[in-house]
């Protein structure tokens, strides 16, 4: 034990300065380490990301301003065609590629981002319906297949992706609803997507009865 001349407290031998006063203590090398010597990670560099955010905002603002200024000459909302892939690129990099979220969460976000982008493209180019008729049902189908394959391969993944898969299954019925409301005009793609969702529900209900019901009960526990 060493005594601090300033506060008069006793300090354990392993210290060269008083923990309260930070004043040096008499004595040499530490006797015994009571805590590890921490390795501080380097301080983060001046937020590189904020530069990219500023650049994105600048590009978006510039496009919107130009679009508004030239709208009288060419009445097309072309700034949306620039904005949509730009925002999708952000989603792809931040929330899909660099994200530490589970695969299910990333797949779902990616799906929503792609759907929104293609819808914007279709709407701004006069809404020919190719997004709701073909692309969106196809992307939904592929994402649901990927997740169900991941789920079927191990119980761990099955449980991990449960919530996202349920959400995707529900989303799988959106194309057929769009067809019912006359927004989509091609039936077979919507039907294919809805059928796969239905098959997935049946597989979960009858193939994984106990696990599925138990998991469902806990997920919706109030």
């Amino acid at each position, binding site marked *: *034990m060493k005594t601090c001349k300033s*506060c*008069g*407290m*006793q*300090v*354990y031998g*392993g*210290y060269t300065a*008083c*923990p*309260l*006063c*930070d004043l040096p203590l008499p004595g040499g090398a530490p006797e*015994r*380490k*009571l*805590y*590890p010597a*921490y*390795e*501080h*990670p380097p*301080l983060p560099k001046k937020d590189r990301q904020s530069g990219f955010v500023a650049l994105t905002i600048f590009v978006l603002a510039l496009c919107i301003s130009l679009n508004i200024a030239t709208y009288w000459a060419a009445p097309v909302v072309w700034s949306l065609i620039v904005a949509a892939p730009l925002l999708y690129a952000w989603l792809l990099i931040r929330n899909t590629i660099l994200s*530490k979220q589970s695969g299910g969460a990333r797949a779902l976000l990616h799906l929503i981002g792609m759907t929104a982008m293609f819808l914007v493209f279709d709407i701004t180019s006069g809404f020919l319906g190719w997004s709701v008729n073909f692309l969106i049902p196809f992307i939904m189908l592929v994402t649901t297949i990927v997740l169900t394959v991941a789920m079927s391969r*191990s*119980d*761990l993944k099955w*449980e991990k992706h449960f*919530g996202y898969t349920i959400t995707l299954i529900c989303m799988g019925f959106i194309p057929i609803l769009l067809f019912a409301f006359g927004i989509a005009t091609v039936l077979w793609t919507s039907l294919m997507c809805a059928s796969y969702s239905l098959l997935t529900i049946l597989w979960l209900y009858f193939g994984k009865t*106990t*696990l599925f019901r*138990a998991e469902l009960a*806990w*997920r*919706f*526990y*109030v």
Partner: protein
Amino acid sequence: MYGKDTAVQQVYTLDNAAKLFPAVASRSNTSVFRIAAIMKEWVDASALQKATDNALKRYPFFAVGFRQGLFWNYMKSNSRRLLVQQESQYPCASMHHDDNEGFFLRVLYFGNRIAVEFFHSLTDGFGGIEFLKTLLFEYLRECGEALPDDGTVRLPGQKIPACETEDSFAKHLNPLVEPNKTKPGNAYRVRGTPYEHFGHGIIHGVYDAAQLARLAKQRQMTLTQLFCASLAYAVAQSPNKEDCPEPVVLSVPVNLRSFFPSGSLRNFFCITNINIPGEGGERSFDETAAEIRKEFDEKVKKDYLESVIKENHNVLAHPLVRFAPLFLKHAGTKFVFAKWAEKNKTATVSNLGVITMPEAMEKYVERMETVIYPTPGSPLNCCICSAAGKLTVSFSSSIREKDIIRCFFMTIAKELGLCAELYSNEWS
């Protein structure tokens, strides 16, 4: 068999206190507390790993991961192996789903220290102590020590009583009690310079437990009251407090097991705010102690605690809260916590009391330490425990200034004539 989740997984709901922590937990408010034993000998990592494997068999409700439902979080058993780690981070660092094999407790070792860190949703200080005692017992056995089972430590192989996992808040809810509707005002808040590298600075002060208890008794105070009085006095002496009319409010967790019969190892505590008014001029230590005693007499009693439990229950049982989706609940809790709860207190003082162990086990333990996490609104907190005749006061802080901690130890030295033996983690 580790490494694969099986179909037979146990699921546990969260008690009322536990529901708060997942919503507010972050890097700066980790909701992680530590209980550690300083052994007389260097810790053997392989024996500790075996002891951890054994101890977790007795506490399956701690070997869990968190899951998100649509309305509430719940806990599900985790059949992977909890690996002990050599301490490398600051105490009470945050826990994340992807770390630590999905567990929400850590078993750490460094030199002579065996530490267990818990995410607060799993348990409170009482549960943490019980787990550490089991871990130490198993560890010493793995080290070849012949320890007799005197029935005071929960050991693997014993039947696990259902009461250990019960939600005692629900069990002891008194429907006839009026909920506590007192709206606390803003408290004086400790401010300071954050560390250059974010982390928790820890300063421990060790006293002779019997001597300190005797001196506190002479002043007609319990140890908790003594530490509250010393801290409130130290806060009042800090330069920032001058001309600040807001009261010093110390948040004191009360172990409800002392008031309600409960064998639960989950959270069963209640926060009591001890209020020392800001007006009335500068108070001496004795005047501060008198205020503290009065507050304790008023608030640390069954009727008051029942009303606080009822109020907490009413908030969570409200249909608007109950049926709100989890993400909305989390957003709301975060908002309420930052806007009000954090502004109601100056610091937390948590006394875990005397940790008793079988004599055969105690002779291998030098002392114990407990550490609680600081938060942005309460950057300085204090935790106390005593074991093997030594009482350790541990301050955790996220700011560089140490004037309050210094004044705290010097007040005890001046008023009771007892100096602490200090050590720290030298975070700054």
